[in-house]
């Protein structure tokens, strides 16, 4: 056997499917995307098996009547309808939460009908035991005529038997599980529909008993659509006719399936699962009494958010200093060991400063994702959605938008990707459109630089620092602006009925540290990859635009101006003059460089915001990736190569920067105006690219770019003008 056995993992959300996937593959996932849709395809080789096998992790779904893109992919893969998985899997493992077999088996009974070899994996057996639930797996196996594997994926319990089964020979896999008995009228309607459709010219692969049932049950569903396109009016008439016959026989189409399945499941589980009499209060219930308490829940929620933001700011400091030191040292080595010229400048100012200025955020990103991973893993995220839904639903979003929005505080890219779990397309688009307004970690350096340099460090009551408060306020700008934007979108471009909010509240779990660590590595890797590609490229272009053209005449005229004075001066004064001359030369070069000219050209546009041409050019340079602004400001305000937001020299330079009349450029209103601009502007090529990919059209990224940039300009203008009025 040459090609590996393909094993699909299917199950409801919150069944620990991903944990099982990681345990089976040993964290060796290959992550890609299904073509044309935005659903992630995750697969990996089975570890510790006797034959090669590929494990495919399908998106979580409650049913095979697919409504969201996620569910659609799961169904398509099972049917072998996707180009990435052109044949059905060789084995389907249905992953079930052992504490909640009744509901989980609904999907399992649907999968039994696909006719694919399958087995049940009862995950989180330990939790079921703790809750006093006992399961007679041997009897369940016998009644359903399908293999049942009790496991605890997070601890690796029971996985050896599962691995052995995955690798057993074909004959052992093929078993036909007990199927749910549907009313006779339904079965005969399916049979006659099949005959009618074959006569109408629908291909045999689209008229399997499984698909015929799905077509009858799901009005307007995928199976029905496929048959209608192939069989035309004849097929449509046959389907409508079959449904009418059923209705006449007294069956309600909408409830027929659920009734039959749940009745059958109850029969199967009777005597197999023993749940303790009366409702015992579980640990989860006790935790929830506090965490979703009308008052305490909100208090805990707010406190938690505050801790997260404090941690991002203070825990990361030593690591950031360390990274800063490393890049500073590298840059010094280049400057010290290479002769002055384009190459040295390119390496020190372009490559090292550009990439270093971005890598420095790695500690903050790791800390944020650490919190998000833990909160997600332990089940708190669903509670947060529960708490926030009323608020968000008034804005035309849903509680489900909460996780993508929160993730966007780290980076809009995972945030936009996380919107995949939102079923309603309008809800999803609205969330995608406002998610980039959240202050991502790339905005933090801008805030840190401006706040550190221009906001006084006094503390209120000895506890709360003004600088920290301003930072917190900057993080509130995004949500505050997102509200009217979302409302407007929901009333104009994305008008439509309010979608549903049905969400399971899974029991709390101890976070799986291996899993959390793995996810952190994944995120950190993705971030570094971005730093190494997009941001590297941008740095190079920005460097070139600030370095060229470089006619020698510029330097010569300034040198000539200084020559006499330097010759006349002595000692320290001479040295100071030389330094001043060199700065003047750099400044002159910069002013007539490509980027400098662009900055001068847009000066009329940015003057009302309180900015000079240099700030304007730094902002232009940061449109592909906003974090670039710090290193660009460093290059422009002439402190050399290793500028980052913690660099005191850059801070001092900004404080010292003056207009022609000697008044300082950077005042508090200017600093805040810059921060507000960065808070609202769509300065991230990668986010726009991901929006393009997720919405499958250029329309939405262009819309996001235009509206955000306009808002940013207006916001900065208001802040500066009002601020100057107050200050003046």
């Amino acid at each position, binding site marked *: 056997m040459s090609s590996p056995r393909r094993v699909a993992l299917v199950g409801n959300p919150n069944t620990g499917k991903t944990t099982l996937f990681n345990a089976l593959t040993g964290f060796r996932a290959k992550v890609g995307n299904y073509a044309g849709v935005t659903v992630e395809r995750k697969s990996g080789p089975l570890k510790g098996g006797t034959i090669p096998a590929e494990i495919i992790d399908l998106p979580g779904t409650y049913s095979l009547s697919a409504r969201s893109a996620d569910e659609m992919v799961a169904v398509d893969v099972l049917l072998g309808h996707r180009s990435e998985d052109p044949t059905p899997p060789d084995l389907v493992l249905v992953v079930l939460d052992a504490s909640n077999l009744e509901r989980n088996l609904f999907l399992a009974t649907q999968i039994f009908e696909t006719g694919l070899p399958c087995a049940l994996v009862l995950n989180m057996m330990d939790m079921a035991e703790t809750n006093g639930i006992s399961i007679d797996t041997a009897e369940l196996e016998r009644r359903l005529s399908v293999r049942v594997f009790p496991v605890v994926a997070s601890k690796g319990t029971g996985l050896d038997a599962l691995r052995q089964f995955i690798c057993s020979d074909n004959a052992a896999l093929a078993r036909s599980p007990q199927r749910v008995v549907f009313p006779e009228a339904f079965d005969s309607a399916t049979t006659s529909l099949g005959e009618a459709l074959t006569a109408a010219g629908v291909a045999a692969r689209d008229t399997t008993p499984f698909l015929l049932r799905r077509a009858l049950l799901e009005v307007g569903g995928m199976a029905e659509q496929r048959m209608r396109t192939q069989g035309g009016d004849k097929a449509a008439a046959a389907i409508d006719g079959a449904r009418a016959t059923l209705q006449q026989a007294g069956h309600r189409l909408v409830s027929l399936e659920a009734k039959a399945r749940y009745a059958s499941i109850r029969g199967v589980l009777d005597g197999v699962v023993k749940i303790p009499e009366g409702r015992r209060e579980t640990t989860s219930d006790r935790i929830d009494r506090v965490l979703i308490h009308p008052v305490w829940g909100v208090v805990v929620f707010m406190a938690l958010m505050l801790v997260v933001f404090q941690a991002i700011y203070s825990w990361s400091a030593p690591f950031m200093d360390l990274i800063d030191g490393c890049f500073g040292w590298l840059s010094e080595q280049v400057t010290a060991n290479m002769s002055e010229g384009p190459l040295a400048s390119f390496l020190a100012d372009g490559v090292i400063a550009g990439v270093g200025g971005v890598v420095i955020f790695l500690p903050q990103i790791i800390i944020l994702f650490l919190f998000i991973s833990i909160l997600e893993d332990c089940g708190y995220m669903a509670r947060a959605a529960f*708490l926030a839904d009323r608020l968000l639903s008034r804005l035309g979003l849903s509680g489900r938008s909460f996780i993508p929005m929160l993730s966007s505080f780290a980076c809009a890219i995972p945030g936009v990707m996380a919107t995949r779990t939102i079923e309603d397309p309008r809800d999803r688009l609205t969330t995608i459109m406002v998610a980039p307004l959240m202050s991502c970690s790339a905005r933090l350096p801008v805030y840190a630089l401006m706040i550190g340099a221009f906001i006084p460090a006094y503390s209120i009551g000895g506890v709360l620092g003004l600088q920290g408060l301003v930072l917190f306020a900057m993080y509130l700008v995004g949500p505050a602006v997102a509200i009217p934007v979302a409302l407007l979108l929901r009333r104009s471009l994305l008008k439509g009925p309010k979608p549903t*909010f049905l969400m399971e509240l899974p029991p709390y779990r101890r976070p799986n540290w291996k899993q959390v660590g793995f996810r952190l590595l994944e995120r950190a890797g993705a971030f570094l990859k971005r730093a190494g590609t997009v941001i590297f490229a941008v740095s190079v272009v920005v460097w070139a635009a600030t370095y060229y053209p470089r006619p020698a005449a510029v330097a010569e005229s300034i040198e000539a101006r200084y020559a006499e004075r330097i010759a006349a001066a002595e000692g320290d004064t001479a040295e100071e003059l030389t330094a001043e001359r060199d700065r003047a030369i750099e400044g002159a070069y910069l002013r007539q460089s490509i980027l400098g000219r662009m900055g001068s050209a847009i000066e009329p546009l940015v003057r009302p915001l309180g900015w000079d041409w240099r700030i304007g050019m730094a902002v232009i340079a940061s449109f592909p990736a906003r974090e670039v602004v710090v290193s660009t400001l460093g290059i422009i305000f002439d402190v050399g190569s290793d500028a980052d937001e913690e660099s005191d020299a850059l801070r001092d330079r900004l404080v010292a920067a003056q207009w022609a009349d000697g008044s300082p450029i950077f005042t508090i209103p200017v600093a805040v105006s810059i921060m507000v601009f960065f808070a609202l502007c769509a300065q991230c090529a990668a986010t726009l690219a991901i929006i393009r990919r997720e919405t499958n059209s250029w329309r939405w990224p262009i819309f996001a770019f235009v509206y955000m940039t306009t808002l940013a300009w207006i916001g900065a203008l208001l802040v500066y003008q009002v601020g100057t009025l107050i200050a003046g």
Partner: protein
Amino acid sequence: MKLSQMAIGQKGLITDLQGDSALIQRLLELGLTDGETVEVVRFAPLGDPMEIRVRGYYLSLRRVEANAIVVEPQA
């Protein structure tokens, strides 16, 4: 009585589902079938959504969605 009108801790028997067919189908898939017992666990701080217990697990849904579920309150 509608599920949304029940009080915290109150149990009810589902007698009917009324409203949008996509919503009804999803509710059915999640196990809210005729004759099932549901219990109201709590309401979110702003009174919406609500949390219910059905078939041994916890589900959150909005009041408008709970309006689709007709129940007969149990003593």
